[in-house]
C-alpha cells in the first residue's frame, strides 16, 4: 500500500463517519469489561436498532476513557457528556439514554467532560483511547494512522527520523528515563546485518496499567511507533514482549498485527518500498525481572529471564547478539505524534529536562482512580486533589508511591513538587512506568516497605548474591520489625545493607530494590521507631499490633 492509497482509505472512512450524527462510545477496555460493559454495549446497540437509528447513531466499542472508578463508562456525542457507572442489568436506564440523545443527558448518570479529571489532561499518547475501535484498523487509519510511517519511508531519511526523536527530548517511559533518540542513534550506528526492535510490554510494576490500556485501546499506535523505529535504525524484525496477565492486550495486538500485515503496513515491503518489518508477539511467563532489558532479551531467546552484565549494551549486542532497540509501550506510543507534529511541538510540552506528557495510573486511596495523561511537571497536589478528586472519606493524605518496587514513598511535604524525572529522583523515588499509588493516613509505612521487599525478594532471579540474599535479609529485618522484634540497630543495618545492594547488584531490579525501604526510613522514621520501641503498629496493619504488647525488653 502506498501513501496515496492509505489516504484514500482514510478519506472514505471519514466520509462514512460524517453520515453519523450521533455516537455512543462504550469502553470495552479491561477495567470496564470487568464491570460488564460488553452487556451495556449490546443493550445500547439493540436499543438503537429498535429505534431504527443505526444509520445516524453509531454505538461503538472503544478503548479506555480513563476514569475506571466510574465504569462502565460511555460517552455520548454531540451531547458532549460522559455516562458513569451504567448498570448493565437495567435496560430501562440504557433505553432512557438512547432516548435522550437529542435532548438533555440522563442526569443521574451524566458526568461532564469539564470536570478536572478530564479537562486538566493533555492526551497525546491516549488521544485515540476511547475514541476508536481498537479492533478496526480502518478506525485508526481514519484518524491519520500509519500516515507517519508511510511518510517516513517515502520522504524522510533514516537519519532524519532519528534526529527528530533526538530533538524532541523524548525520554524512555519505562522507568530509567534514558533519552530515546540517543538509544535510537546508537542502534542505527551499530554494525550488524540483522537488527531488532523490541517493545517492552511486560508492565511488571504492581499498581500500574498504562501500557495495558494503550495496548487494549490503541494497539496500532504502538505498532506504527515500532515500525518507524525499525525504519530509523534499519531493523527488520520486531517483538512485543507482553505479560501473560494481559490476555486482552495480547489478543488485540495479534488482531492488529494481522490487519496491518494484510494491508501491507507491516511485513514485507512496507509502503511498496524496500523496507520490511515483521512483528511477533512473545508472551511473558510471570517474571518481573523480565522488564529489565537484558533479562527480557534472554526470555525472548527462550531462556531463564536472567539479566546479563552491561556492557555490552543491547544497542550493540542484544537479541541473538545483534543490535537491538528496546523501548516500552508508552515510548513507542509517543513516536507517531512526534513524527506527525514535529520535535519542536513535543519539546514545547513539559519541563526543561522532561519533555512531553506522562501517563499515570492513579490508584489506591483516591476518589478518581484511573488513567490520566498530563504534561510533565504538573504538581503532585493537582494530580491527587484536582484530577484525583482527593482522598475518600475525608481521610488525610500520607504518601504517594511511585515507581513500583523500584520507587519510593513521597510524603506530604512534596505535594507542591512538579512531577518529572528529576524531581522524583531528588525526592528519593523514581518515575518508573507511571504507577501512582495514593495512601491515606491508615497506611503503615513499615507494612508498605515490607510489601515491596517481599515482592523483590520473590522476583529476584537469584543470579547475583547481593540481590538474592540481600533482599531476603532486608525482608527478614522488616518482618522482625513488623512483629515487634526489631532493634534500633536494625535501622542502621537496613541502611547499610540497602546501600550495598544498590551499589553492587547486577541489574536494575537489585539496584533499586532497597528504594522503598530507604525512602520510608527517610521520611517515616518515626513509624519504624514506634514499631521497635513500643512494639505496636499505630495503624493496626502489622502483626505486632495484634498480639498483646510485651513491653519488657530483653
Amino acid at each position, binding site marked *: 500500500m502506498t501513501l496515496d492509497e492509505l489516504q484514500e482509505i482514510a478519506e472514505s472512512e471519514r466520509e462514512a463517519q460524517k453520515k453519523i450524527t450521533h455516537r455512543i462510545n462504550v469502553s470495552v477496555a479491561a477495567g470496564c469489561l470487568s464491570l460488564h460493559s460488553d452487556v451495556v454495549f449490546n443493550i445500547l446497540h439493540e436499543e438503537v436498532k429498535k429505534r431504527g437509528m443505526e444509520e445516524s447513531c453509531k454505538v461503538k466499542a472503544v478503548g479506555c476513557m480513563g476514569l475506571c472508578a466510574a465504569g462502565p463508562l460511555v460517552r455520548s456525542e454531540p451531547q458532549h457528556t460522559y455516562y458513569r457507572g451504567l448498570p448493565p442489568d437495567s435496560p430501562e436506564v440504557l433505553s432512557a439514554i438512547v432516548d435522550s440523545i437529542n435532548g438533555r443527558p440522563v442526569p443521574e448518570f451524566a458526568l461532564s467532560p469539564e470536570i478536572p479529571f478530564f479537562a486538566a489532561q493533555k492526551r497525546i499518547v491516549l488521544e485515540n483511547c476511547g475514541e476508536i475501535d481498537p479492533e478496526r484498523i480502518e478506525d485508526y487509519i481514519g484518524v491519520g494512522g500509519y500516515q507517519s510511517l508511510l511518510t517516513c519511508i517515502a520522504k524522510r531519511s533514516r537519519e532524519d527520523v532519528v534526529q527528530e526523536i533526538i530533538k524532541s527530548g523524548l525520554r524512555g517511559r519505562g522507568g530509567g528515563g534514558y533519552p530515546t533518540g540517543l538509544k535510537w542513534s546508537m542502534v542505527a550506528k551499530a554494525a550488524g546485518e540483522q537488527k531488532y526492535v523490541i517493545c517492552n510490554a511486560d508492565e511488571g510494576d*504492581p499498581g500500574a496499567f498504562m501500557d495495558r490500556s494503550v495496548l487494549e485501546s490503541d494497539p496500532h499506535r504502538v505498532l506504527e511507533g515500532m515500525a518507524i523505529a525499525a525504519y530509523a535504525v534499519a531493523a527488520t524484525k520486531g517483538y512485543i514482549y507482553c505479560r501473560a496477565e494481559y490476555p486482552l492486550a495480547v489478543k488485540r495486538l495479534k488482531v492488529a498485527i494481522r490487519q496491518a500485515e494484510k494491508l501491507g503496513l507491516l511485513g514485507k515491503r512496507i509502503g511498496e518500498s524496500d523496507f520490511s518489518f515483521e512483528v511477533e508477539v512473545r*508472551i511473558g*511467563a510471570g517474571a518481573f525481572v523480565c522488564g529489565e532489558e537484558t533479562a527480557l532479551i534472554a526470555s525472548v531467546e527462550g531462556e*531463564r*529471564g536472567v539479566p546479563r552484565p552491561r556492557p555490552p549494551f543491547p544497542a550493540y549486542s542484544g537479541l541473538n547478539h545483534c543490535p537491538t532497540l528496546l523501548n516500552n509501550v508508552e515510548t513507542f506510543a509517543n513516536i507517531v505524534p512526534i513524527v506527525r507534529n514535529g520535535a519542536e511541538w513535543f519539546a514545547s510540552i513539559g519541563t526543561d529536562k522532561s519533555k512531553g506528557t506522562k501517563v499515570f495510573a492513579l490508584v489506591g*486511596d483516591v476518589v478518581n482512580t484511573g488513567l490520566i495523561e498530563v504534561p510533565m511537571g504538573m504538581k503532585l497536589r493537582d494530580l491527587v486533589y484536582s484530577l484525583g478528586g482527593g482522598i475518600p472519606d475525608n481521610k488525610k493524605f500520607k504518601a504517594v508511591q511511585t515507581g513500583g518496587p523500584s520507587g519510593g514513598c513521597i510524603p506530604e511535604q512534596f505535594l507542591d513538587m512538579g512531577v518529572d524525572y528529576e524531581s522524583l529522583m531528588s525526592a528519593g523515588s523514581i518515575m518508573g512506568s507511571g*504507577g501512582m*499509588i495514593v495512601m491515606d493516613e491508615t497506611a503503615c509505612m513499615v507494612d508498605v516497605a515490607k510489601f515491596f521487599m517481599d515482592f523483590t525478594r520473590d522476583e529476584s532471579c537469584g543470579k547475583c548474591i547481593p540481590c538474592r540474599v540481600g533482599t531476603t535479609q532486608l525482608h527478614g529485618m522488616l518482618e522482625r520489625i513488623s512483629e515487634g522484634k526489631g532493634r534500633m540497630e536494625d535501622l542502621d543495618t537496613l541502611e547499610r545493607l540497602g546501600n550495598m545492594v544498590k551499589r553492587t547488584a547486577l541489574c536494575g531490579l537489585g539496584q533499586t530494590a532497597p528504594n522503598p525501604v530507604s525512602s520510608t526510613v527517610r521520611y517515616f522514621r518515626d513509624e519504624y521507631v514506634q514499631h521497635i520501641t513500643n512494639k505496636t503498629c499505630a495503624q493496626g496493619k502489622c502483626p505486632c499490633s495484634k498480639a498483646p504488647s510485651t513491653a519488657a525488653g530483653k
Partner: protein
Amino acid sequence: MQPYPESVPLPSADKRWKLVEATMRRHGYKASALIEVLHTVQESFGYLDDTSLRFVASSLRIPISKVFGVATYYHFFSMKPPGEHTCVVCLGTGCYVKGSGELMKMIEREAHICAGETTPDGKLSLVAARCIGSCSLAPAVVIDGEVIPRAQANAVQEQLRRWIGHDSR
C-alpha cells in the same frame, strides 16, 4: 541448521500433542521457541509434567535440565494439575492498599490451603497474582477467568463455600 527432529514420536495418541507440535513447527523447532511451546503445553494440558517437558526437550533439542530450569523459573508455569476452579487474588500494590492481603488470608483460612496450592479434593486452586492491571478497581479477584472488581470478602467467601463444601469439613 539441524534438520527437523521428526524422529521424536508424540508421547501418546492424545490429540493435544498435535497442538504442541504445531507450535514447535510454526517456530521451526528453534530452541528460542521454548517458552512459547511451554505456553501451548500449559494451555492444552493445564500444567507441565515430566512427559511434556521431556517431549519438548527432545523435540527442540534442548538439554532436559535447561527445560526444567526454564519451566520452574517462571511463576506462570505450573508443575501440578490445577484444581477444578481457580481463584486468583491480585496482590499488586493498588489491591494491597485496598486490603487484598486480608482477603487472601481469609480465603486461605476458608480453603485451608496457602496461595499456590490446590485443595486435596482438587476443587480449588488458590493463586496470588503480582498485578493483573485492574488497580483502579481494587481489590481485584479473578474467579475462573472472570475479573471480580472491588471484590468483597463475603461474596468471595460465599462463592468458595459452594465449591469446597465447607460445611462438610
